[in-house]
């Protein structure tokens, strides 16, 4: 699957970033275990995230979050608060 066609699952993306935010730089195998993903799936996400500049993988194979990565997570949280928070669902439960 090429990175152009790849549409990330936002939850998986947020989970990877969240894990990296909590642990700092991590090896791919550790990151896969900590974020509950298979190695292949993680690799697909890392390829996509690298192409978007959200993470960098250094020469020792450590995956590190970039500032853009941190900002992407913050954007996702803001999105959740803005859109889910403004759902007009006040009266539905009464029906």
């Amino acid at each position, binding site marked *: 699957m090429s990175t152009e066609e790849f*549409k*990330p699952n*936002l*939850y*998986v993306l947020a989970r990877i970033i969240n894990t990296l935010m909590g642990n700092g730089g991590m090896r791919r195998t550790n990151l896969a275990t900590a974020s509950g993903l298979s190695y292949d799936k993680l690799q697909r996400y890392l390829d996509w995230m690298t192409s978007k500049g959200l993470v960098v993988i250094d020469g020792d194979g450590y995956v590190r979050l970039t500032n853009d990565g941190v900002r992407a997570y913050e954007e996702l949280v803001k999105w959740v*608060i803005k859109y*889910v*928070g403004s*759902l007009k669902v006040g009266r*539905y439960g009464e029906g």
Partner: protein
Amino acid sequence: MSIDDAVANLLRLRSALNIVEVINHELDALPKILVRLLVIITSTLGVYSLIIVFLGVTYLSDIQLSSLGIVLFTLLAAFTLYYIVRELEKASRVRSPYSDWDEKVKEGALGILRILSELDWDTVDYRVRRARSLYPILLVIEELILVALLSLIMPWLISLIMWLILGIQGITSLNIIGGVLVSIAVALASTWGEISNGAKALWSIDSLMWELRWLYHEYRRIQT
């Protein structure tokens, strides 16, 4: 606006989707209920016809036959009503497909993203649209059941009152028509609150559909 507001909204959304699920389950149960009832009613009427043909002419008088008919039809009507109410009630006891949301929202924004990414939007949209279009049928059926139930009792009650006040004995066609009309009036009066709630629920489901589509659109937008 905070993440707590988003969590509270998501849980309210779940309540609405649970109502949609109950309506859908009741709608799913309707064809099965109707087919079973048709079989039961046809069989009972068939047995009654056989009794008339084989026993009625020789062994039973006209009065005995018509008494048997009245008892049979009353029992059949009572059973039919009881069966519909019981089956609809059973169908409304649904295990919510969204019961795990409580656990997931504990993760905050991450949990909400998980819920949204796991939601089968097409199915949810279909079930919400189905509930919105067919919910009036359920409301009408529930109202008709009550009218029918009251119609079984009212003519007898009116006859009793006529006998006590005016000394007129027996059930006339006037008593039956009056009984049905009173039943409709009583049913409407006693369930007016539910009818109005039903109308509100319909309106809510309609709005819910648009809210969900809007959220889905925004979700797809951020995903790309």
